[in-house]
């Protein structure tokens, strides 16, 4: 018996549908805005009963400092443990709460973040921050441009 692929695909985006939780990395993608001082700004939120971050993937145009508004629109208490050079950043998110996190991240590359509360573990609330760009010119190898996949 073959599963209906379209049905499965639709269910990957929802809590307790195809699988138990929303599949990691599926959902909206949004890019941080860059202010005149070079600081990037963005918002991530937890929507009601989704047990997931929106956007699922936050894109930073380059490495550096990013200020993130962290919003909990859910009727459950959550938290966020976010990557940052020096120490991970922790924020506790009671129902309908809003706070801020300031992160310092290298680029390029992508990072996972998540929650450290027991009811969130294993269910979702694992998000991605993707940093675009290249390393500084002085850090690159002295060789001609190479082929990439």
């Amino acid at each position, binding site marked *: 018996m073959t599963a209906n692929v379209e049905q499965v695909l639709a269910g990957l985006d929802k809590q307790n549908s195809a699988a138990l939780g929303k599949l990691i990395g599926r959902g909206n993608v949004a890019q941080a805005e860059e202010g005149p001082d070079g600081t990037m700004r963005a918002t991530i939120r937890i929507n009601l009963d989704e047990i997931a971050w929106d956007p699922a993937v936050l894109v930073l145009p380059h490495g550096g400092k990013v200020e993130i508004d*962290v*919003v*909990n*629109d859910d009727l459950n208490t959550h938290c*966020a*443990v*976010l*990557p*940052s*050079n*020096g*120490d*991970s*950043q*922790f*924020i*506790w*998110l*009671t*129902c*309908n*709460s*809003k*706070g*801020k*996190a*300031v*992160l*310092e*991240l*290298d680029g*390029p*590359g*992508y*990072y*996972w*973040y*998540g929650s*450290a509360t027991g009811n969130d573990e294993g269910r979702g609330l*694992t998000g991605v921050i993707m*940093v675009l760009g*290249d*390393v*500084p010119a*002085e*850090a*690159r*190898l*002295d*060789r*001609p441009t*190479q*082929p*990439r*996949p």
Partner: protein
Amino acid sequence: MTDYVDAGTAMDLSGLSQVPGSAPQVANSVNYERILNAGSEPQNWLTYYGGYNGHRYSQLDQINTENVKNLTPAWVFQFGSSGLHAGASTYAFETTPIVVDGVMYVTGWDGWVWAMDAVTGQLHWQYKHAIPFDTSLCCGNVNRGCAVGHGKVFVVTLNAHVLALDAETGKVVWDKTWGDVRAGESGTVAPLLVKNLVIVGSSGGEFGNRGHLDAFNAETGEHVWRCYTVPKPGEPESDTWPADSDAWQRGGGNTWVTGTFDPETNLLYWGTGNPAPDFDGEVREGDNRWTDSVIAVDVDTGRIHWGYQCTPHDLWDYDSNMECILFEEDGRKLLGHFDKNGYFFVLDRVNGALVRVTPFAERIDWGEITADGNVIPKIYPDKEGENVHFWPGPAGAKEWTHASYSPRTELFYVPVQDVGSTVARVRRQFKESIPYWGASVTVDSDDMNGFLKAIDAHTGEEKWRWHNPTPLCSSTLVTGGDVVFTGTPTGEFHAFDARNGVHLWQFQTGSGHHSSPISYSVDGRQYIAAPVGWGGWVEGFAPGMLGGPHGDALFVFALPE
């Protein structure tokens, strides 16, 4: 519009711990002179090998062959792994702790650095560098240690940054990007602090980069010099690469293990890694210098003074990154180097001349190196898709983990791996960030052995051996109490009589050893510290232990008070 509850601003996660965030100011007085004379303060372990000479020898003798059987854990540090990180299945605790006047500085997987009390194990501070999940890692999520001096802790990150942290607070003083993660470069080496320079070496040879050694100003982070191990066309030794070819551009020769230093020659002695692609030599005809070599580099200028290639035109992945141990013989300045290819090289460290070469491996059939250094390949991947089997396999007869040398016994204590491998050449196109082996590889998982061998420094002759059912891939430590320490993949930490190999003591730590134990003392009490945590390139050096228990503990042993 929602009337939100104010959740405030995110805080440092370590704020939810009992870590105070400051350490005693012991590192301010650590400078070049103190590291140069590290032997005069055996209570400390001031630099990666304990001294610039690479001996991994501690003069401390409170723990000796008579009482070592009474060793017990004094304290244990654990940290664990939380959340997702790169190489989660391959992370390992490969570090060498540094100890300065009662403070221990330890690096871990995934960007962790800790300062702790060397008597109690209580943390003073911790630092976490955020590492991208998609960083290309050759051989696991690992770091081999830090350098301490000028009030700072110097460490590299997996995504190829060099950091200087304030040794008192763990806060960043400077941060320099020194490798290209898009080219598959990474950072795992323990920096070496010489004069006012922080010396670091590149990782990523399996991704076809171009190996290099770099120096940074310890105070400012200014980049002082870069030394490429693979020459561009027209540079010295470029005739060992095919003409009119781009092979040199991705030729490998990385420098991911810390070198040694002789202040009288002013030379760094640094091993270089495999050429790329590892096993497909047809695309890089020639000797491919300075891959698989010992290079002597002027510490002030970064210029290669001499080189000696242990495996010309490597077809077996026989890096020569392993340590170069400095010793003297009849007034002659020498270095000893145990190579992956199974041979023990003794070189004149003034001019790079071969003094003698002798086998130390258990089984060698890839080829032969004659007494005058002539290399005769015998079994190697040649025809496309055709399997060949050879000993030692690509992890070598000795991994990066280090031998030690006792000036009391004049013996080297060498962790030996006896594992073969089946390899078939598979031609592939080079693409940045894609592994560039040029082969299909399966390392033996059942027919394997390990040995601790004591080798005479002056003849290369084996004086004694201890057999282990699994390959030995932990560094050894030898002490003034004539005790040799090493660990096994199955978790036992062992002590032996350095003079005759008699087994004296063991302790099961719960996870395999792939790191470098050290010794130090505080207030007259001698300690032995052993980082424990199995992982890394296990499929290369001990695939029969790929399912072994992981871990992340630092065990510190002492005699009962």
